[in-house]
C-alpha cells in the first residue's frame, strides 16, 4: 500500500519545544488583550507590522533559521508550538507570515551566501516582509503555465516582464519571491522555470490591490514592466524553479494554519454554550473536535518528517484537503446552530465573527492549492497517475 498509517508515524513534541509554549501564551495574552474575536478571526490574514516587530524582538521570526543568519537556531517543532499558539489565539501574523514560513527557509536552502547574509537577518528582525508570486491571470491552478518571463539583460542581470495575481499583501511587502519562466515557452511546462527575489520598490513594479466582495484588499495584482533585476536576484538554480517551489509547498500545506483558521469562532461558541448545553449542540461541537484531533496529529507527524529532511508532499496534500474542509464546516455548523433558534438573541460578537468567516470560508480551500489539485496529488501518491 502506497499510503498507510506508517506515513504518519506517531510523533512526540520534544520538551525544548514545549518549553516555549508558556512564554508564547503569556506574550499573546499581553499583546492581544482586548482584541475582539471578529478581529482575531483574521489570524494569518491579519496584518500588523507592530505585532510582527514585537515578535521579532522576542526572536520569534525565523526561529528555524541559524543564529549566524539572525534566526533563533531552533527546530521545526519549536516553530510548530509558536505557530500553533499564535493561530489558536488569532494573532495577526500576516506581515511576517510568508517570510517566516517560506521565503527565509527557501533562501536558507537555495540562496547564495550573499542573499542569506543580506536578507535573512532582516526577515528575522521584522524589517522585511515577503509575498509569493505564483498565480497569474489565466494560469489558475495550472501553475506550470506561468508566462511572466525573466530574460538575460544585455549588460548583465535580468529583465522581468509579466504579471502576478492574488498576491497576498504585496502592497505591504518589501520583496516577492516569484516563479517565472527563464527559458522555453508555456508548452515546456515545468521545465525552464526559475525563482527570483524581487525588490518591490524597483522601477517598473506596480502593485494594485484587488478588492473582494467583503471590502477587504489583502490581494493584489502585481505588474512587471521591463524591471531590471541584478544577476544575484536569481534564487537557487536557473531552471530548477518547479522543484524548489514544490519543496516549499510541503511546508506551506502541512502546518496548523490549515486547521485553525476558524478556531477562534469555535472557541467563542463553545464558551457561550456553557455547561448546560443540549446534546445536539454538544454533538456538533464534539464531531468537529473529533475531525480536528487526527489532523493535528498528522501535522505534528509531518513536522517530524520535515525536521528529518523528508518531503511529505502527498501527506501534506491529504492533510490540507481535510483541514480546509473542517475549517469550512466550522462556520457552517455554527451558522446552522445559531439560526436554528430564531427566537433567541445571538451573542453580537459571535455573530460578527461568524459573518466574517461565513463570507470567506468558501475560499479557504483555494489558497495553497485547490481541493481538486490536492486530490490529484493524493491520487498520484496512491499510484493512480
Amino acid at each position, binding site marked *: *500500500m502506497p499510503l498507510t498509517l506508517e506515513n504518519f508515524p*506517531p510523533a512526540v513534541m520534544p520538551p525544548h519545544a514545549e518549553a516555549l509554549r508558556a512564554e508564547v501564551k503569556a506574550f499573546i495574552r499581553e499583546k492581544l488583550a482586548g482584541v475582539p474575536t471578529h478581529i482575531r478571526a483574521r489570524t494569518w490574514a491579519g496584518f500588523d507590522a507592530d505585532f510582527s516587530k514585537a515578535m521579532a524582538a522576542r526572536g520569534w521570526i525565523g526561529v528555524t533559521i541559524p543564529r549566524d543568519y539572525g534566526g533563533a537556531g531552533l527546530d521545526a517543532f519549536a516553530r510548530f508550538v509558536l505557530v500553533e499558539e499564535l493561530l489558536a489565539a488569532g494573532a495577526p501574523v500576516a506581515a511576517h507570515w510568508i517570510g517566516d514560513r517560506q521565503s527565509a527557509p527557501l533562501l536558507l536552502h537555495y540562496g547564495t551566501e550573499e542573499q542569506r547574509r543580506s536578507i535573512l537577518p532582516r526577515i528575522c528582525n521584522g524589517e522585511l516582509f515577503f509575498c509569493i508570486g505564483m498565480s497569474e491571470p489565466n494560469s489558475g491552478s495550472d501553475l506550470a503555465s506561468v508566462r511572466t518571463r525573466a530574460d538575460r539583460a544585455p549588460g548583465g542581470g535580468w529583465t522581468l516582464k509579466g504579471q502576478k495575481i492574488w498576491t497576498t499583501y504585496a502592497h505591504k511587502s518589501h520583496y516577492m519571491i516569484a516563479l517565472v519562466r527563464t527559458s522555453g515557452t508555456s508548452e515546456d511546462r515545468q521545465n525552464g522555470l526559475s525563482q527570483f527575489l524581487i525588490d518591490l520598490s524597483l522601477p517598473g513594479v506596480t502593485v494594485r490591490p484587488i478588492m473582494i466582495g467583503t471590502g477587504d484588499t489583502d490581494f493584489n495584482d502585481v505588474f512587471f514592466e521591463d524591471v531590471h533585476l541584478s544577476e544575484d536576484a536569481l534564487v537557487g538554480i536557473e531552471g530548477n524553479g518547479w522543484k524548489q517551489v514544490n519543496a516549499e509547498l510541503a511546508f506551506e500545506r502541512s502546518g496548523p494554519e490549515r486547521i485553525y483558521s476558524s478556531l477562534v469562532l469555535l472557541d467563542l461558541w*463553545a464558551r457561550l454554550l456553557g*455547561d448546560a448545553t443540549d446534546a445536539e449542540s454538544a454533538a456538533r461541537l*464534539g464531531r468537529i473536535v473529533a475531525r*480536528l484531533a487526527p489532523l*493535528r*496529529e*498528522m501535522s505534528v507527524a509531518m513536522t517530524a518528517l520535515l525536521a528529518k529532511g523528508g518531503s511529505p508532499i502527498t501527506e501534506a496534500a491529504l492533510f490540507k484537503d481535510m483541514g480546509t474542509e473542517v475549517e469550512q464546516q466550522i462556520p457552517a455548523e455554527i451558522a446552522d446552530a445559531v439560526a436554528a433558534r430564531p427566537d433567541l438573541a445571538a451573542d453580537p460578537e459571535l455573530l460578527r465573527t461568524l459573518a466574517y468567516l461565513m463570507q470567506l470560508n468558501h475560499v479557504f480551500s483555494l489558497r495553497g492549492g485547490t481541493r481538486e489539485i490536492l486530490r490529484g496529488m493524493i491520487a498520484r501518491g496512491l499510484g493512480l497517475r
Partner: protein
Amino acid sequence: MTDDDDFLTDAFRRQLGGLVTPEAIRAIERGSDATELWRSLDESGFADAMLPESAGGAGLGLAQAFPLILAAGEYCVPAPFAETMVARAMLGEQGVAPPSGAAILLAPASAVLPGAGLASHALVDRDGVPTLVAIQVSGDDLFRLRCATAIEQGEVLGLLAPDADRLMLSAAAVTSALMAGAMGRVLEMSLRHAGERQQFGRSLGKFQAIQQQLAVLAEQVLSAQVAARNAFVGTTFELARVAAAKCRANEAASHVCNIAHAIHGAIGATEEFDLQLYTRRLKLCQLAFGSESYWGARLGHARIASGLDLTSDFLRLRLGAEMN
C-alpha cells in the same frame, strides 16, 4: 513502536493470513462451527498478549496492542479476538481468571453486539459493575454476521471494580480500531479494483472522477486510523480519545463504504466478492457501542467541561499522541 512490536505484528499477520481466509469467514458467517478457528487463535497466545509476562502474556500496553487489533480488522477476523484480548487484560489486572479458552465479548449497552454468536462469555454492565458472565445469544443476527441484538446472561464468574464507563470505552475503542483496520483493507481493495477494471477502454483508476473519489477515500481512512491509534495511548482508555476515535470511525465508514461500492459497481455487493465482507461489518460496527452523535455529544461536553479556553489546548492535552 519498537522492532519487537513490529515483529509481533508481522507474526500475527502471518498467522491470520493462514487461518482467516475469505472462505473461512464466509463459512462461519453461514453458521459453521467456529470452534476450530477460535482454538487456533487462542493457542497462538496473541489473545493473552496484554497480560503481564508473569501471567503468560507479552505485557503489551495499549499502544503496542493497537497494531494487533488493526490487523484483526484488516483480516476481518470472525471471532471476538480483540475483545477477548482486552477483556483478559481487564480481568487479569484485577485477579479474575476467566475460564480457559473463553471467547469474551465486551458487552455494554448497545443496539447490537458484533460477534456475540461467536463468544462464550461476556463482560456485561450490572449497575456499574463490569461482570463476567457466560452467555448465549437470544436476539436476532441482523447482519448475518453472527451478531446479536441481545444476549442471555448465565452464570456470574467474576466481578470487576465498579466503573460505569470503562466497559463502554473499551468496547468503543476496540471497535474503532477494528473499523480502522477494515477501512484500510477496503482502500486497498478499491485501489486494486480501480487498477484492474477496464471501462471505456482504460482502467477505472485513469479517470479523474475516480481518482478524486479514491483520494477522499484515502483521507477518510487515514483520519480514522490516526484517531483510532490515539485511543490507544496511555494506560487506560480515556473518554476524549475514545469518543474522537469512534466518532471519526463511524463518520468515515459511511464515506468509505459509499465510495468503495461506487468504484466496485454492483459486483462489489455480491456474495462472491470480498468487499461486502468488510463493508457489512463496518455498517454493523456503526450501530454498535454508540454513534457519531453519541460520542460527539460526549466529546463536546468534555470539551466544554475541560474549562480550557482553546480547542488547540484540548486537542494537545486530551487527544494527542502523548500523555500529558
